């Protein structure tokens, strides 16, 4: 019976385990063969948490937020402000605070913004993001304006890493981030396969019908929005120790566009799509930036090409190739 509940390629715990293993093993290898590119793996993993959160809203609930940088900003500034004003150095309480702050914001604006779907929701989120961005920029005395807030080395799990070599610090941080990401991935797997996850998909497919089945769609969307905010806020908080500076740029609407693109690139209908997308995008951006000053041009063409040629993303491309191979053994699968 349970087989009737589809487990597509890339939606299983096994796929997550393989992915995490690859991200763990790739780091020392990169450090060895292309040391400059290792740090992007950490960035990619962090962005993947944000994209995963975004995708619960977009891929699973059908709500396109064009303002998820809002929560990146909340997360990053939580770290920055607690460090600056409370002198906190332990990362864990800051992560928790960031998640709580993101959830609080989501619960505050959610009941209002979720009344609208489609383009209105997208614009609404954009506006909220820009309000906060304007706040970081203009409330100079609190946030440091464009100077941002400097982030020193953080303490992880109670260990003071202030004295060790910077590259070792970065390596430790990578595995720290990866461990958190692994938990986040697994939790997301549970969410997606839970009654909530299926109900969200139902809302995405047909909200009116879902309501007719007695589902309180507004409440469920609010839950999804809040979880999504918590994930993205967590990513924002994890970014801060790596960027070493929290500035309004992190909360600019262009960052929202980036998160959207990462998700689409990987494949919004797959659990691991946004993860794959985030890591590939991070490398694409950094390589394109290094190769040519016209990397926007490359990126723009790529965005349009992906949307037209494979609107379901790279995972869907991989999936269809694999499906073709599997058909020989008579196993037929397709994405949901």
């Amino acid at each position, binding site marked *: 019976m349970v087989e009737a509940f589809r487990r597509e390629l890339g939606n299983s715990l096994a796929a997550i385990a393989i992915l995490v293993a690859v991200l763990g093993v790739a780091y020392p290898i990169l450090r060895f063969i292309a040391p400059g590119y290792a740090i992007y793996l950490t960035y990619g993993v962090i962005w993947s948490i944000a994209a995963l959160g975004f995708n619960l809203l*977009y891929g699973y609930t059908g709500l*396109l937020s*064009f303002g998820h940088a809002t929560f990146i900003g909340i997360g990053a500034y939580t770290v920055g402000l607690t460090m600056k004003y409370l002198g906190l150095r332990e990362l864990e309480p800051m992560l928790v605070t960031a998640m709580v702050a993101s959830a609080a914001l989501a619960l505050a604006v959610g009941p*209002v913004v979720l009344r*609208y779907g*489609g*383009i*209105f929701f*997208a*614009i*609404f989120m*954009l*506006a*909220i993001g*820009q*309000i906060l*961005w*304007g*706040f970081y*920029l*203009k409330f100079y005395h609190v946030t440091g304006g464009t100077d941002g807030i400097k982030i020193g080395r953080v303490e992880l799990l109670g260990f003071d890493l202030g004295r060790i070599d910077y590259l070792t610090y970065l390596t430790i941080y990578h595995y720290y981030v990866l461990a958190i990401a692994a938990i986040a991935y697994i939790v997301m797997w549970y969410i997606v396969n839970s009654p909530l996850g299926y109900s969200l998909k139902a809302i995405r497919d047909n909200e009116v019908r879902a309501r007719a089945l007695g589902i309180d769609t507004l409440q469920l969307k609010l839950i999804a929005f809040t979880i999504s905010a918590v994930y993205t806020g967590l990513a924002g908080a994890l970014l801060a120790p790596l960027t070493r500076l929290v500035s309004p740029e992190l909360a600019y*609407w*262009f960052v929202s*566009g980036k998160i*959207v*693109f990462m998700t*689409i690139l990987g494949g919004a209908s797959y659990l691991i799509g946004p993860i794959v997308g985030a890591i590939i995008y991070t490398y694409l951006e950094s390589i394109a930036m290094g190769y040519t*000053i*016209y*990397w*926007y*041009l490359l*990126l*723009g*063409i*790529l*965005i*349009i090409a992906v*949307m*037209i040629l494979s*609107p379901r993303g790279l995972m869907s491309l991989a999936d269809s190739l694999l499906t073709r191979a599997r058909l020989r053994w008579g196993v037929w699968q397709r994405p949901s």
Partner: protein
Amino acid sequence: MALPIYVLDTLFYSSLLFLIIAGLNLIYGILRVVNLAHASLFTFGAYATAWITTSLIVPRLGENLLALMVLPLVLAVILVILVSLALVTPLLRYSQGRGDAFQLIVTFGLLIIFEDLFKLIWGPHPVSAYNLFFQMGFIDIAGLRYPVYKFYVILLTAILALALWYVTYRTAFGLVLRASSMDPHMATALGLNTSRFLFIVIVLASALAGLGGSLYIPVASVQLGLSTEFLVIAFVGMVIGGLGSFVGAVVGSLIVSSLRTLTLIVFPELELVVLYLVAVIVLLWKPEGIGGGRGW
């Protein structure tokens, strides 16, 4: 004593915004696509006008007032239309009916392509052509000097808005326009060649944006990032006025521009925050916008 100047400056800025928002609303009204790359045509118009003025007109014809007024504007708008036909039109037509996400992402791609095309063609430095601004001279208002050029832009846009109003409410084409913006199938139902109709709408919208850019350049320089600056503000105007309507474009551009001037006078610290805050309030209070809700 400065009040008349503030009013004029507000009208000037809202003229530019109107030319962008009207196009955005036309495209949204008829195609139900929010075109993130729309303001890029404005920027393109600005770059093209600066280039035509400084490289073609001034070296050949000197600072001839009439030549400066007419030639750069006409040539630039033609160029913008050509670029729109090559890049924007096909993509918008393709995006139609493919969902909000698809449209937003694809036009976002187009937006950043434009940014680099500008860099490729005109380089990273700001480009300006103040010739017309200074050629038209200045007059005294309430004891302050004021550039005649800004009057010219306000007047030209007002005439254009009236013409647009006339087309919308007094012609057969306008009837189809309004009907189709309420029901996308209407154009077909009215026996119109839908494909040609959409084509005209996109070209008209592009021309308006290009015109805006062309009128903008004698006052200030154009630089990379100008598109997003105007896009985001035009977006706010679009939301405040009402998505997809002619009245919305008028109301939205006037309100945003007035708010900008007001905040600059009252609390200059909060310019950006106030704009977005008002947009959020309008969305809550009247999601269809202050002037909208009835189609184009």
